[in-house]
């Protein structure tokens, strides 16, 4: 039997070329974050030391984490239960509601940010960390909804009837059957929401108030006064953190969480 034809060598060449060009800036950034020039180039961690000792940067990081945790926690709760409700609902407008909730995926981010800002303005809400969190909830909600929805669609919902038949109350069914089965997808949704919130610039930029700037905003502000190795170090740290989260997300998909009663 003839083996499947292999892709020609030049195809691999183009692929690696494209990947190299794409990742070159990242590599340059990472490398520049650990180098310093005295009379010749030497390896150093001094830029990282600077980052860690920069009070303002650390404050911004803490705010970023706060916003990330708060917004993804709330959107996981709301989005997760919304997905359960949608799956169970016999309401005839389920499809339009689903479509509407996925709309924020396709609405241009700038439009989204502007409309949020004008909404806050109309409601006379003072821009602060709270408005950032609210804004982040609105855009990460549909990601959680989609993740959990996908899992629920794959489940045979007659298991809920089975539990009901065995005498379980609705609350017990939710606690011991439905939630354990969608837990990994909710965890995945949480991580996804956190990731999106952590590196969001545009929407945060529009909705944050004075003194409530997050890490990406801070980075942008600092960049205006010149690209320093210190910024490279910060960016490298953010990159490492994000990549770590993505690995966690991949693990979460394969995770099995056994429900205990």
């Amino acid at each position, binding site marked *: 039997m003839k083996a499947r034809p292999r892709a020609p060598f030049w195809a691999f060449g183009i692929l690696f070329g494209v990947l190299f060009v794409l990742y070159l800036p990242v590599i340059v950034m990472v490398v520049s974050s650990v180098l310093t020039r005295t009379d010749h180039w030497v390896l150093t961690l001094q830029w990282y030391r600077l980052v860690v000792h920069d009070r303002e940067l650390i404050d911004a990081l803490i705010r970023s984490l706060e916003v990330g945790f708060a917004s993804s926690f709330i959107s996981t709760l709301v989005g997760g239960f919304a997905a359960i409700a949608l799956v169970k609902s016999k309401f005839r407008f389920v499809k339009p509601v689903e479509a509407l909730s996925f709309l924020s995926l396709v609405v241009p981010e700038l439009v989204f940010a502007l409309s949020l800002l004008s909404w806050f303005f109309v409601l006379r809400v003072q821009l602060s960390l709270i408005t950032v969190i609210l804004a982040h909830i609105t855009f990460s909600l549909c990601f959680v909804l989609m993740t959990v929805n996908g899992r629920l669609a794959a489940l*045979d919902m*007659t*298991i809920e*009837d*089975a*539990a*009901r*038949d*065995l*005498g*379980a*109350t609705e609350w*017990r069914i939710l606690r011991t*059957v439905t939630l*354990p*089965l969608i837990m990994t997808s909710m965890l995945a949704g949480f991580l996804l929401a956190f990731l999106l919130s952590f590196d969001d610039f545009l929407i945060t930029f529009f909705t944050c108030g004075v003194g409530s700037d997050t890490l990406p905003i801070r980075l942008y502000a600092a960049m205006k006064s010149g690209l320093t190795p210190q910024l490279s170090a910060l960016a490298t740290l953010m990159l490492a953190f994000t990549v770590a989260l993505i690995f966690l997300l991949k693990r979460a998909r394969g995770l*099995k*969480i*056994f*429900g205990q*009663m």
Partner: protein
Amino acid sequence: MLRVVNISKNFGNQTNALKSVSLNVNSGEFFSLLGPSGCGKTTLLRIIAGFETASTGELYWNDQRVDVIRPQSRPFNMVFQRYALFPHLTVFENVAFGLRVKRVDTRSMKDRVENALNLVGLWSQRDRLPETLSGGQAQRIALARAIVNEPKILLLDEPLSALDQKMREYMQTELRELQQRLGITFIFVTHDQEEALALSDRIGVMNDGNLEQVATPEELYERPNTHFVAHFVGSMGSIRGSAVDHQSLQLPNGQVIRGNLGRVEPGLTAEAFIRPEKVRLSKIVVGATKLSGDGLRFDRGEGVNKVRGKVLNMAFKGLHYELHLGIGPDQRLRALVPPEKMKFGISIGESVTAQFSPTDTFIFNCPSGMA
């Protein structure tokens, strides 16, 4: 005893999924609801279980009204078509689910789960997850999960339809034996008439939201009450014509078929059903029998029915040959012939005479809407 009283069900705009069905199921009985898909049998079962509410009618269990109580509180348990095992729980925890809900103490809970799993022969598999089980095993776990609660009635929704042929036959025997050992009332929904005939004490045949006939398998086979039951239960051949009086019908070629079973209204379309094992064939030897132009003469007295047909198809089925006879356009009779009778050599395309007694012939008016 379970009493179903005038239960009907309308789903939204789709009217009459069930049309005022009344039914009694005795305690300890293996009762089947038989019918084609969409006839309302599963809806009736789900109403008994409590997953659907009836539009009208009542449900009584030993004179206690049960259609008003929640499914959680009814003394019935259900085995689902696609098992519906909890995928995140082990076999043991699946079976223990109902007992944990009822807060049965740990000791007797473990004993009862062990008993139930032993009953289906799967105690050794207690630590496995459902996804690692075969279809037959999963179905037995689903059974164990239901019977461990000692229900008064076990409701089974086409529990064997997802299994392959061999496993299905094996599980049929298992089910029947289990039911006799436990003495629990079984209400078994199926579209497979052979399965229903083989397993049940009594069968309720359903069609289009109506309960057509409730009878023992033997009665159903020998005395179908309606056109639908005759059509659906057992595999009968049939020929269509128009009724001439209450007991006979005339084929398009003018020939008259007499049937002692059933009754037809003269002037309407009618159909005669004959069990294939009751049909006897004889070869038409050209020259030996003189045939008049209008086919075979039929004696209006006690004589047997005789029709002439052409062998369209022939299949060897082990115990017998199954032959399809073309009587007229779209009219087919089926006949089972034991292999030793095939010695005189019938082949496809040949003309034969089929004989059957009026005492073996069922006649019914065709329901309106059937051509």
